[in-house]
């Protein structure tokens, strides 16, 4: 069951890598021409093509590229003339740090709020938390970011710039990244909270919940012990989706807070037509997406006895 799911995940990744490779391949223009610009003599172009291996047939190049990726060799950046791995590694580290930081605040908060909203549904608590979460998600990310900067950075509580490096000490990192993490929390919480609330409320209508009431079980225990385990699958999936979004989709927040993350690297890569960088970061993003969704599926399968223990 789980093995099958993992195999499917790997297959998806291979297909994605092919897609990334082919779409870059399909871009108009010649890379060598692009690099040389004005000074492109036919000999120079041919030399560069040989240098980059562009004279090889596409399938050979694909295999070489993918094989290199698997061994950690991401190729060389055309614009910066440095190995891509050196560009990506610190950025990826930063992005993962911010994602994890945000997740540590947002996921428990969203699930707790969602459970409480379902426990006290249609109460003022439910309505206020819903309304707040929805207004937060309705505002553009940069706007949320600037508002936080206006209120929390201008008064000097937190820095508005989060330009950390891998060598920054942990506590300083946490302090510097507080505002971007808070911004992202506001962006992703609503989705997870509302899914938690909806999933649990759905389950609260089922006969086994009535049975728990008739056994004299406390309402809080009913939510935690009887409803939550059965609502886990949709919740875990929406959490994974939001985590993937935090890794791949936060370039605007990165720019607002001058945060050196992967998103900026990719945008720069696109701007300078640095094809290998774009390819490499696309593949990292794709792996994050596939990996997180895979993890979500595995968790929801592993926590469901009906799937784990078939008759």
């Amino acid at each position, binding site marked *: 069951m789980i093995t099958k799911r993992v195999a499917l995940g790997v297959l998806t990744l291979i297909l994605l890598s092919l897609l990334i490779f082919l779409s870059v391949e399909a871009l108009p223009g010649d890379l060598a021409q692009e690099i040389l610009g004005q000074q492109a003599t036919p000999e120079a172009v041919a030399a560069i093509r040989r240098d980059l291996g562009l004279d090889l047939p596409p399938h050979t190049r694909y295999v070489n590229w993918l094989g290199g990726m698997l061994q950690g060799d991401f190729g060389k950046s055309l614009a910066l003339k440095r190995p891509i791995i050196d560009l990506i590694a610190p950025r990826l580290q930063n992005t993962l740090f911010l994602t994890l930081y945000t997740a540590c605040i947002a996921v428990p908060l969203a699930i707790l709020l969602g459970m409480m909203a379902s426990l006290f549904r249609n109460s003022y608590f439910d309505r206020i938390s819903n309304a707040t979460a929805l207004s937060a998600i309705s505002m553009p990310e940069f706007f949320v970011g600037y508002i936080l900067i206006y209120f929390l950075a201008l008064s000097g509580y937190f820095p508005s710039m989060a330009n950390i490096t891998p060598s920054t000490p942990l506590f300083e990192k946490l302090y510097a990244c507080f505002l971007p993490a808070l911004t992202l929390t506001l962006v992703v919480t609503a989705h997870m909270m509302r899914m938690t609330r909806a999933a649990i409320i759905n389950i609260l209508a089922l*006969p*086994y919940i009535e*049975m728990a*009431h*008739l056994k*004299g079980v406390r309402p809080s225990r009913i939510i935690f012990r009887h409803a939550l385990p*059965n609502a886990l699958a949709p919740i875990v999936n929406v959490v994974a989706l939001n985590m993937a979004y935090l890794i791949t989709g936060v370039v605007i927040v990165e720019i607002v807070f001058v945060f050196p993350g992967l998103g900026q690297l990719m945008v720069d890569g696109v701007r300078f037509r640095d094809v290998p960088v774009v390819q490499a970061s696309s593949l990292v993003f794709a792996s994050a997406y596939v990996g997180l969704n895979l993890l979500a599926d595995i968790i929801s399968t592993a926590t*469901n*006895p009906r799937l784990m*223990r078939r008759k």
Partner: protein
Amino acid sequence: MSKKTNTAPLLNMRNVHIKGLSDEKWVDIINGVGLDLNRGEVLGLIGESGAGKSTLGLAAMGFCRDGCKITDGAIEFDGLDLLNQNRQQMRQLRGRRIAYVAQSAAASFNPAHRLIDQFCEAPLKHAVMGRAEAENYATSLYERMNLPDPDEFGLRYPHEVSGGQLQRAMTAMALSCRPDLIIFDEPTTALDVTTQIEVLAAIRDIVKQFNTAAIYISHDLAVVAQMADTIKVLLKGDEVEQATTVKMLKSPVEDYTKSLWAVRKYARAEQQPVASLQPVIEISNVTAGYSPRQDILENVSFVIHKRRTVAVVGESGSGKSTTARVITGLLKPRIGTVRFNGTPLPAGYQDRNRDQLRHVQMIYQMADTALNPKLRIRDLIARPAAMYLGLSGKALNERVRDLLRMIEMEPDQYIDRLPSELSGGQKQRIGIARAIAAEPGFIICDEVTSALDQLVAEGILKLLDRLQSELDLSYMFITHDLATVRAIADEVVVMKDGLVVEHGPKSEMFVPPHHPYTELLLGSVPEMDPKWLDRLLESRGVDNIGDAAIARMK
């Protein structure tokens, strides 16, 4: 069984009124019903759906479902006024002193936890006993209820045990705190007859053993007759009458009660078998399954003649519905053919022509889900008439009105309604009209009456009977209810594990000797005699009923 004492009754409900919210209006569900229940006494609550049986049963626990409220009356349990306890006090009672056994154990067990954990929850939370003691108690109850492998049984998850076992596990769970009162809410309605017996025997044994008081809710009189000392009949939230079981069965006073009793006696005359004629449907040597490795049906053959009803009986999983799927072409058989009036039908419905499709129609168990809720009655019935017979405009409209008259529903009143504006029986009638709109030669009726109340079901059976003689129809009647077989069938096919184990005219079916499985099936249908279960257990033995008896046949 009842032991009258001079002390106050355990449960005393007086003039209880309960209202429910329906379309934003409060409507009466229970209009002033009262009851007394002494320790060790079993009260049967009888009534059709909507009579308020479950609502009253839950009220005995001081519990109301969402959208219900107790508006008047008094409920006293062992001297405690249940309507004036706070939530915590109520939680102290529920599960510990009053327990509940629900209709569907499969839906009422939490799928995420092991049976033993769910058993132990109430004793632990109510601090009645510790974990080890609770587990031991569970094992002893499982053993007492003839559950397989009592030591290991609790380690399983709900989906890993059969329906009858799960229902017994739920009864065991209700007993976990040794309650004074148990509410049994249709605990065997969803089970096959042979499984039902096991559960009935277990429940009765336990109730006697622990001297527990119980309210036994059911729509099945014969079942209640086995379980209850006293029977109370409810109709739309009103009490009709109450008497001891023996008296109630022998001489019911009210007309409504008498009508309930009479339903079980409906039976049409069996028609003589026709051997010489060409059968309408001929199923020959059909072997079929949903995966190529596993066959569900094995070498199934039988024929259905013109204007005859063949009842196909068997328990869930015996292959009844799969046979229907093969006939309709929804499932292609691996081996074998289906002939209609002598011509072989193509295996898949995609390959059948319009006329072949027209002649094989189906009526489903759940009229609720079989009718498109967004379409009006007019369109539901018009569609097959237009599609198969090419009717349109005025002719189509006339045809729809005719069909409505044939199913005894006034066209002007019903033609523009939505399915949601009809009762369960009326919806089933629309399902019938839709089937006969195609002017078929043959209709498969898949458990068409099992979701209906007895009086309504009787009406449907009579309607089907009348349509059969008017329209020269042949029926294949899939059912697990032998009373229905007795009422409508000409011939009976008994299926078990995908095999036809017995086949013959109805008159022969109900007379021995039988295949041992048929014998078990027939013997497991509860009778109105309150001593029936005692006699059965005596003659067969506790270990020779239900699954255990079936296992012995192999």
